[in-house]
């Protein structure tokens, strides 16, 4: 028994220990301090009253209670508004499809492992996806409205850009994670990069792409509810009009309808994605 215990190596024990080591601890505390100072300075810079910030949540409930309640449900059951829900659905579907269709080649270009041309097409593909993603869908809407005029064409175009950015990144991440074995096998047979993509990559990512495409539509629908606010057609247009006319009870009803529709869209997309996963 003692011989077992004796086998444990014992070195000279230190007398003290401290969590704080000179350079590392200084860096860590400096970083935390810098963040706190930055946040505090931000509040001062933006003239935001901290008390107001935390009081605002109570204020929110008050505002909802007095201004938006009771929502004017009859307004959102009106035929004109219901048609706008259909418009929103159509825009999101079309924008989602066009976006996904354009995102697939861009994702192929911008996936490092199978990119057809690493020097030219790779950075172009990356740039395309990143810039589509960098600009918020509402700004895309305003830009397209200024070029194409008010209406759903501008909305669909903006949603297309949004979906390119959203799906493009997910697609290229998916492509970069494929098993390279089949890719090498195809290359060894002398296939060109398009053939490699079609025969070695596409079969591996097909199911994942379908799931992402459905998810993209779901997210596009969420965005589509507000593109109308900036002239892109659909439910958002009604929102804008009533906000401007201070018809708060109608605004409340519209927001409720948006939430309801988004939940429905989320449910449908979840169900479809589960079905796709089952079918694979």
């Amino acid at each position, binding site marked *: 028994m003692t011989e077992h215990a004796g086998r444990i190596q014992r070195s000279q024990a230190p007398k003290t220990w401290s969590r704080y080591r000179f350079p590392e601890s200084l860096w860590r505390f400096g970083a935390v301090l810098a963040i706190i100072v*930055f*946040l505090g300075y*931000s*509040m001062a*810079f*933006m*003239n*935001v*009253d901290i008390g*107001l*910030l935390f009081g*605002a949540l109570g*204020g*929110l409930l*008050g*505002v*909802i209670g007095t*201004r938006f309640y009771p929502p004017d449900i009859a307004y959102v059951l009106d035929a004109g508004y219901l048609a706008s829900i*259909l*418009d929103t659905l*159509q*825009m999101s*579907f*079309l924008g989602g*499809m066009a976006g996904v269709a354009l995102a697939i080649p861009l994702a192929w270009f911008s996936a490092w492992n199978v990119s057809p041309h690493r020097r030219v097409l790779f950075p172009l593909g990356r740039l395309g996806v990143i*810039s589509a993603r*960098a*600009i*918020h869908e*509402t*700004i895309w809407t*305003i*830009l397209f409205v*200024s*070029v*194409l*005029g*008010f*209406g*759903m*064409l501008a*909305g*669909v175009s903006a949603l297309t850009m949004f979906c390119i950015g959203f799906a493009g990144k997910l697609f290229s991440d998916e492509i970069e994670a494929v098993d390279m074995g089949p890719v090498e096998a195809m290359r060894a047979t002398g296939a060109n990069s398009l053939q490699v993509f079609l025969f070695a990559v596409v079969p591996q990512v097909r199911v994942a792409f379908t799931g992402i495409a459905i998810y993209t539509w779901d997210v596009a629908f*969420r*965005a589509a*509810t*507000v593109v109308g*606010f*900036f002239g892109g*057609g659909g439910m958002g247009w009604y*929102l804008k009009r009533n*906000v401007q006319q201070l018809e*708060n009870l109608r*605004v409340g009803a519209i*927001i409720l309808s*948006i*939430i309801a529709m*988004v*939940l429905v869209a*989320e449910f449908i997309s979840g169900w479809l994605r589960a079905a796709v996963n089952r079918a694979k």
Partner: protein
Amino acid sequence: MSATDTHIAGLGAQTTLRRKRQMKQALIWTGVLVFAAWCAHGTIIADTDWSRVGGRSGVLASIGRYMQLDLGLLPELVRPTIETFMMASVGTVLGCFFSLPVAWLGAANVTPSKTILYPVGRFLMVLSRSVHEIVWALIFVSAVGLGALPGILAIAMRSVGFISKITAEAIENIDAKPVEAIRATGGNQFQVMYYGILPQIYPVVLATIIFEWDINIRRSAVMGLVGAGGLGLLFFRQMNSFNYGGVSMVILAILMLIILGEIISHYLRKAVI
């Protein structure tokens, strides 16, 4: 029946099966395309005022207006750019504070009440994500007036859903063994959470917060469109005064800010993991 016959019969069955699957796929694709055509008819062909678009030259002329950058706007850009960055940062931090209780309620294994508070937590997560940031901003502008404050609050509210959802999932997936060990040493509820749960979830939570912050920079750039400060307000003003060169300048400023955000979050993520 010989073995070869069985084999051939099997092949026949396989062919029928494949044909069935192909039929089904063709059907799905036809449906999707018909639906798309209907959507295209409704949204693009019937709804667009093509004389307003004005053909290819008209579109090119409209785009061309954006190409003459208004460099004179440069000094006016500085303050809103900083404000946008700050709005995103403060909004994210505030969102984290709001997320804490929501994640606590909405994590099945630590929620104080499974029948009442758990669904409440789950509902708050869904609510936060299903309302677009522009709508949140509208609500808060109406509640607290114009300025940066409604923007901060809108971003915070929009962030809660994702951060608390990921946090709750991380809590649900923790390893129960260290938690048991802390309980066995006589630790109280707080110590169990702080020593048993927090060390297990914090890498995931921090990565999520950084990710959300990155997205929030994009969001805070548009808050001004509905009156909540930052670059969006400047964008709105340039657009309303038809100064297209100025609009392009604002967009460039947004792009700069987003690239900066990407770089910072890249290094932060490395530091966390």
